[in-house]
């Protein structure tokens, strides 16, 4: 890896020197180590750098996008003031901003739509010279922006994305993903499902027809079939959808005893509520492997009670991890009356991981920052100690498995889940050889 990197630096530096000698010699002013690439150094010449952030504030995943937005707002405020969790990270502690520069940002509505997401990402890169972009909640948005990032040589820290493809066949040198992938979710939840529901279940799936849906359904099938479950059918619905009746008719009239709903965001809420109308939840156990941020609020505690799933992060983790407590308290102060959800946690985490890498690399130069992230330096954050894996840019992190509480067991109106287990990273990470990631080059 470092050999490639050295060779890359030498060749590009050489080429750039050749060009520069004939032209302005600009790159020399920025140190011979860091040849111009992407928006570097153009985006770092003022007294501030710019981040382009894409949040789906409308469309199927808008509720999750809204929390993502709040996470970014808090993260950037903390970064620029040296407060909150940012102030507890050794490389950032006692500093305001990043490398002496203010970190400016804009948030655009990606509309849960890959085309819109790409359009905004491109605008931020070309017009605002964004030094880093981040965001997206649908994997389709994230994978599309990852391609832009790779092409434009600008770092992209993903928003929410649960497909194996994001760090698998669609992995990019310039893209890093902090959310657990489908494999990790399935690996974490399956032993708990076996214990709670037994090993003789007949499962039926409702799956949104795109990368995230297929990836999570396939991982769940793979793991549950290993413990003895059978898959009755995988009912695939278009993404997004609003009326699930024809798909639910299939499910209601199947022989399954377990309904595994892969749908997410508003689609997850709508399909689950409609499933209740079809009497499905009375005759089948509901499992939602990846529970979207406002799913419990949408379906209510009557449906939520006894539902197994995972949460990328849940605020009660503040009882376990000190920095989760700091994050929770800061968020509450910034947004009174709103409890942070896990997309907000992702936004904060991704900005923190990037800022820490920049601070330790002492430059915004993207290949150098990437190399710093790939070095896998452990960092303490809201889920304990985490680090990025070089081979596929997946964050090595634990997976919280939860079960929905019945109304009578809820201590307050946000107390939706009991945390069954926080499964450590070494039990859930897919071996690198199993991912289909062929990491593209720096250039």
């Amino acid at each position: 890896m470092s050999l490639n990197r050295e060779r890359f630096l030498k060749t590009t530096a050489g080429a750039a020197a050749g060009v520069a000698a004939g032209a302005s010699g600009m790159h020399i002013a920025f140190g011979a180590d860091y040849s111009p690439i992407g928006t570097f150094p153009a985006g770092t010449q003022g007294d501030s750098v710019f981040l382009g952030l894409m949040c789906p504030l409308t469309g199927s995943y808008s509720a999750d996008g809204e929390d993502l937005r709040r996470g970014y707002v808090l993260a950037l405020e903390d970064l620029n003031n040296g407060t909150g969790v940012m102030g507890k990270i050794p490389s950032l502690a006692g500093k305001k901003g990043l490398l002496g520069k203010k970190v400016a940002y804009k948030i655009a509505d990606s509309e849960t739509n890959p085309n819109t997401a790409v359009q905004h990402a491109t605008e931020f890169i070309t017009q605002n010279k964004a030094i880093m972009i981040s965001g997206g909640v649908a994997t389709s948005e994230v994978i599309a922006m990852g391609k832009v990032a790779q092409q434009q040589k600008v770092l992209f820290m993903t928003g929410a994305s649960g497909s194996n493809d994001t760090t698998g066949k669609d992995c990019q040198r310039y893209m890093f993903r902090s959310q657990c992938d489908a494999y990790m979710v399935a690996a974490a939840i399956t032993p708990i499902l076996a214990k709670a529901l037994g090993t003789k279940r007949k499962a039926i799936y409702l799956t949104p027809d795109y990368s995230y849906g297929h990836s999570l359904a396939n991982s769940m099938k793979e793991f549950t079939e290993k413990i003895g479950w059978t898959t009755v059918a995988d009912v695939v619905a278009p993404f997004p959808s609003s009326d699930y009746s024809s798909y639910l008719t299939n499910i209601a009239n199947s022989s399954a005893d377990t309904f595994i709903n892969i749908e997410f965001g508003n689609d997850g809420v709508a399909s689950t509520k409609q499933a209740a109308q079809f009497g499905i939840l009375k005759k089948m156990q509901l499992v939602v492997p990846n529970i979207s941020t406002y799913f419990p609020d949408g379906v209510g505690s009557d449906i939520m009670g006894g539902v197994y799933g995972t949460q990328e992060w849940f605020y009660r983790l503040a009882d376990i991890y000190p920095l989760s407590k700091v994050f929770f308290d800061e968020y509450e102060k910034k947004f009174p009356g709103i409890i942070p959800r896990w997309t907000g946690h992702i936004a904060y985490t991704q900005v923190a991981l990037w800022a820490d890498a920049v601070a330790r690399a002492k430059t915004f130069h993207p290949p150098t920052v990437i190399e710093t992230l790939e070095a896998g330096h452990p960092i303490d954050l809201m889920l304990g100690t985490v680090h990025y894996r070089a081979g596929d840019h997946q964050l090595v992190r634990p997976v919280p498995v939860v079960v929905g509480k019945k109304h009578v067991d809820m201590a307050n109106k946000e107390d939706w889940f009991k945390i069954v287990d926080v499964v450590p990273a070494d039990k859930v990470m897919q071996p690198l050889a199993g991912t289909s990631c062929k990491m593209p080059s720096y250039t």
Partner: protein
Amino acid sequence: MIEAQLLNGVALGSILALVALGLTIIFGLLGLVNFAHGAFFMVGAYAGWIVYTQTGSFVLGVATALVFAFIVGIVVERVLIRFYYKRPPEDQILVTFGLNIVLVETVRAIFGGKTQLVPSPSWGQGAVQIADFVYPQYRLEVVGIVALTLAVMWLILFKTRLGLIVRAGIDDALIVNILGINVNRTFMLVFALGVAVAGLSGIIDAPIVAVYPDMGTDILVQSFVVVVIGGVGSFAGAILGGIVAGEIVSVTTAFAPDYGQVMLYVAMALVLILRPQGLLGVEGRA
């Protein structure tokens, strides 16, 4: 299972038929291509949803949707649409498409982009056991509501003086005017009636699909497909087209869920090739 899907096809198709009916009335009687129909559907849903959540009465919500959409229809027709009856279809498409954007973005500016869940009315909760399968009660009731609405619309258009004037006015507006009848006002009423039906469909569909600013977009596309399948401008065609479309989606889903929507467009293409005027359309009418 196939019986369950056949029933579901009727339920799905009935909503489509109602939306398509509004489209086909406006096109068939006024000759206006209305791309704002999805927005009227959405406006009705929002108006009904607000009253429903404020008062707790779904019936009041439905009545509000109907009346509010009717008023919106009258205003829009007077200030905008009436200047476009004699304009070429591309002008009509542009102006109604623009109107669609204005309405959707206005609602988004007022209520935000979030999806608002709408509970089923108290008399529509739960599921009904039919033979060996269960089916949501509200969806069955929707079929009844739609059937009733269609019957009323048929009476208005084919058994009243208004309907007579409209149909005469379409054939020869000049003669009807000479007979001392105000065709302009009749056209206004017909347009508002089409909009009111769209608004009604919106609030009826709201407990099933929830309310959000773009909710009309999907249904608009599908209801155009229904109109094409059923026959442009045909009252019976809208109903038949709706049911056929609902059955195609539902029955395909029983065998191959991921092809349900695709088959809808395949069916439309087949109709356009084999019977361009639609199943119940009359050649040259449109």
